[in-house]
Structures are given as C-alpha cells and as structure tokens.
C-alpha cells in the first residue's frame, strides 16, 4: 500500500506549505513584490505603514518607453500629509521623488515621468502627522533598460547649451478644480550607469510663492526621474511661483511662473 507509506511526508509537506502561506499572508503586499521589504526598510525608514486605497498611482500597464514612464499620483482625504515619496521597488535607484510641502495637505495630485530598469511595482507613499505611511501602487510591465540607457543629451555634443532651460505655466482651474502648476527643465538626468557618462541629475528644487516669497514646497529628485523632467502639481490660492533648483554638480536653474487668467 503506497498511500499510507507516503502519508507522513505528505502531511509534513502540507503543514510546511500552510506555514509558508500563513507567513506570506502576514507580510501581505497587495502587489506581491520581492522588493517591497527593501522599500519599507530603506525608503520608508522602517516606519509603520499601511496599504491604503486612498493613494492611487496611474501608470500604463505596459511601459512603451522604459526611459519615460508616465506616472500620476492621486491622494484623497488623508489629513496631515507632510511628505510624499514615489519609488519603484525593482529599480537600481529605488526612490525617484520626495515632495516636502511646507503646509500639511489632505490631498495630492502629482505627475511626472520616471525610468524603469525592468517590470516593477511603482509606489506612492504619503506620511501623515502621526508618522504613519499610507502606501498605494501598481505594477508596470516593461522591456527594461530604462535606467541604464544613455540619455539623449549624452550623445549630443551641444547638450550643455540648453542645460537648465526651464518652462512652466499655472493653469487656472475652473469651478472647483484646483489650479495646476506644470514645469519642465532641460536636463540629462544621467544615472551614471553608462560608461564614461557621470551621474548628473537634479537633486533639489524649491517652489516659493509670489509675491510673499514664502516657500511652498521642496522637491528632492534622483536620476530615476526621466531626462528633461516634467512635473505637474495641483495648487490652490497662489498668484505665481518662483522655482529654483540645483543638480548634483551645483548647476542651478530658476524660473518664474505667473498665473494666466483663464484656461483657453
């Protein structure tokens, strides 16, 4: 009789299987990502977190261009937001953007483009006043190589002539729609993964209100943000902004954006 002979081993295997499944359920990341633990430890600094449907990340299901993956973060109804982080679990540079608003927010609408080196979860995490991270995210599928691809600037001998050129605009929202600030900077955002092309990326950007000059927000970026980055934010009650930034080599850029009257 074969079955009884094998039964003890089979039971043992079932027990082990169930223990493993149970362990899985405890650490349950809704995206079932092998990189989540590292994001939680390093990007969220081991602070407590919860997965939260109020934080949503919009990316395409498949990255058409791994050097430029569109991404929009939407956060609604979380009081006391003091920090927003965008990260991709399986990227060699995990954290892409940190937003540090000067005033506590209860909603966020933020868009940019990032590079992905392979298929990866893309996360947004917002830190509230109680020190709890609220995490949302989704998978993006990709052919890969976005972080290690040479920038267009790195093969263009005249790249430095336009370095730091910036454009922006405030788009006035109509009836209940917040104003939208969008700006873009000409910058290679080189990750340093291409031989002979050193790391060169915008590290820090500050946004100040016009006319009072008070800082509204700081933004920290890494080379996981796409070349010639574009940033879009919702704002309310601002007449205009002065934007200043610098890269890791000390190159600076500056831009003043006045609100236009109406949306055409």
């Amino acid at each position, binding site marked *: 009789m074969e079955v009884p002979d094998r039964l003890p081993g089979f039971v043992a*295997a*079932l027990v082990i*299987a*169930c223990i*493993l*499944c149970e362990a*899985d359920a405890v650490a349950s990341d809704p995206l079932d990502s092998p990189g989540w633990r590292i994001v939680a430890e390093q990007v969220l600094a081991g602070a407590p977190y919860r997965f939260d449907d109020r934080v949503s990340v*919009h*990316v*395409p*299901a*498949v990255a*058409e*261009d791994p050097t*430029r993956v*569109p*991404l*929009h*973060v939407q956060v609604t109804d979380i009081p006391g937001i003091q920090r927003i982080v965008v990260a991709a679990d399986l990227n060699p540079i995990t954290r892409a953007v940190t937003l540090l608003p000067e005033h506590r927010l209860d909603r966020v609408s*933020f*868009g*940019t*483009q990032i590079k992905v080196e392979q298929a990866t979860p893309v996360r947004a995490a917002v830190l509230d006043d109680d020190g709890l991270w609220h995490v949302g995210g989704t998978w993006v599928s990709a*052919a890969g190589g976005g972080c290690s691809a040479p920038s267009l600037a790195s093969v263009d001998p005249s790249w430095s002539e336009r370095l730091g*050129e*910036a*454009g*922006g*605009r*405030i*788009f006035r929202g109509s009836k209940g729609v917040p104003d*939208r*600030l*969008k*700006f*873009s900077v000409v910058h290679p955002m080189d990750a340093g993964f291409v031989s002979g092309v050193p790391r060169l990326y915008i590290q820090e950007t500050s946004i100040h209100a016009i006319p009072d000059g008070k800082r509204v927000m700081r933004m920290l970026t890494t080379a996981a943000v796409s070349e010639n980055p*574009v940033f*879009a934010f919702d704002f309310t009650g601002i007449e205009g902004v002065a934007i200043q930034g610098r890269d890791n080599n000390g190159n600076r850029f500056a*831009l*003043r*954006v006045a609100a236009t009257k109406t*949306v*055409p």
Partner: protein
Amino acid sequence: MRCAYRWGAASTTALLLMAFAAVTAAADYELLAEEVAEGVWVVPGTTEGFSRDNGGHMLNTGFVVTDEGAVIVDPGPTLRYGEQLRALAESKAGGAIARVYLTHHHPDHALGALAFSDVPVHALPATIAALERDGQKLLNNFYRLLGDWMRGTRMHLPTQSAEPGQVKIGGRRLQVLALSGHSGAGADLAILDVGSRVLFAGDIVFNARAPATPDADIGRWLTSLEAVAALAPEQIVPGHGPLAAGLDALKATRDWLDWLDNTMRDGASRGLSMGEMLNAPIPKRFASWGQARRELQRSVNHIYSSYSTAALDWN
C-alpha cells in the same frame, strides 16, 4: 497560490507535456486567403495587438496574382509567417513569386522578408533606411514579445528601392504610392491594383482597430489620407482590421486621428500630466475598436510631450 507548487512531480510533468503540445500546435498560423477581386487575395488578420497567442498574426497581408507569379504585399511578422504566406500565394499563382513589397518598416509587416530572400523585395528608400537603423532593435523586441514564433527569423533588408508610379508586372498594372505620417516621411507605401481598384493601404488605414503611432506625424498622416481618398479606391485593405468598401475605413482612421490630436491639445491646455492622459475618456464610437485604450496609452508616450512642451512658457 504558492501552495500549488507542492503538488507532485507527475502532475508537473503532465502540465509541461501539455504546454509543450500547445506550443507545438501553435506553430501553424493557419493562414487563409480570400479573393476580394479577380486575382487579388487578402490574408486577413484581426484587430488585436501582437502577442504570444497570435504569433504576430494580426495584420492584413495579401497578394496579387500575375502571369509572372504573385506580388506579395507585406511578408508579415516572422520567418514562419512568411513561409506559410509564400506557400499560400504559390498555391494560387502557379508556384511562382514575382516580387514582394513592404508597406513600411514596422516589425509585424516586415520581419517575415527572410522567407523571400530569393526574390526581389521592394520598399521605399525611407523604409530601407529605417530598417537599417532600427531593424535589429525591432527584431530583438519581437523575439521578446513573440518567443518561439520568431524561431529562425533574421533581418532581411529589401533589395530594391520602390518608386512611386505605375508598374506593369505579368500583365497587371499596379500603382505604387509613397505616403507619409504613420511610419515617417515618405516611409509609407500603399499599392493599388489599377484594374480592380483594390488598395492595399498599409498602416495608413486602420479599421475598427485603433491606429498605432510610434513614428507618427498626425498632420502628414491626414494629408496622406486625402491623397488616398483622391484615388477613389473601390475597396481598401487596411493594415489592421476588416476590409471595407469605398472610403469607410479611411474615414474611421481620420476620425480617430482628429480625436487624438484634439484630446492631446485639450489635455496640454489644461496642464494635465502624461499620467493623467493615460485615462482620457474614449468616445463611445471607438469603444468597440480593438486596442483602443492600449493605443491611446502608447500614443500618450509617443506624442503628448510635444503638445505639453508647447503649452508652457519657456525662459
């Protein structure tokens, strides 16, 4: 799900055998040709995107039978497809292939050319340049996307530069058009069988399937559609989607391109991010089209930056 891994080796082996059988069976594209006018055959595809399920068989190809043999319009996505298309064309055309035309350089249309390495392969100069520049990249990407369907497929560059105008082959008159907008400047070939007025439009025309825009210039594309309309074809074989009488498919393509252009411009004028544009509403009239959301999302990546950049004030 992980618990499932603990089932016995016997069932794993059975599953592997079943999977192997499925892959082996899938090796056949099961191509069928429909005669849409005397001696004019279309090998219809679908309105899907390319995948490991369809092996890249989603485009329309075809051939025109002449006294010198078949004139092939697009060898398809893989060597295997090209071989099966060739066998089909030879069976209808007395065993000979006169020549091959590539409508453009995109891999689903062009990579099967190796199956015709002993006959002249004609393409527009801009198409040949694009294949010389991007061919290897397109080939690698198709190996990744299609897997085993691609076995043996290598780059086979066109051997002849196609020129616009009429050509007479084996007693049949064909008119070659050099168009622009889908694949680059002067990189979209369309071919009219003058006798039957059947037009093989390449990817200048899509029908019931959202147009793809990786190399698109919408303004040029719309101009090309006007040029095609002026030919007054009786039937149009679109690059993707069902054959249509008259200009119906052309009008559908124009409708999508106009909508896409307006949607991008509107999004840029409201300061929307690329990520927000991914979710732009798709009108009801396109809801039943194949790949509508997917192609919109690809188009956001391909073309939205230029609209967005132009809507900002630069220092």
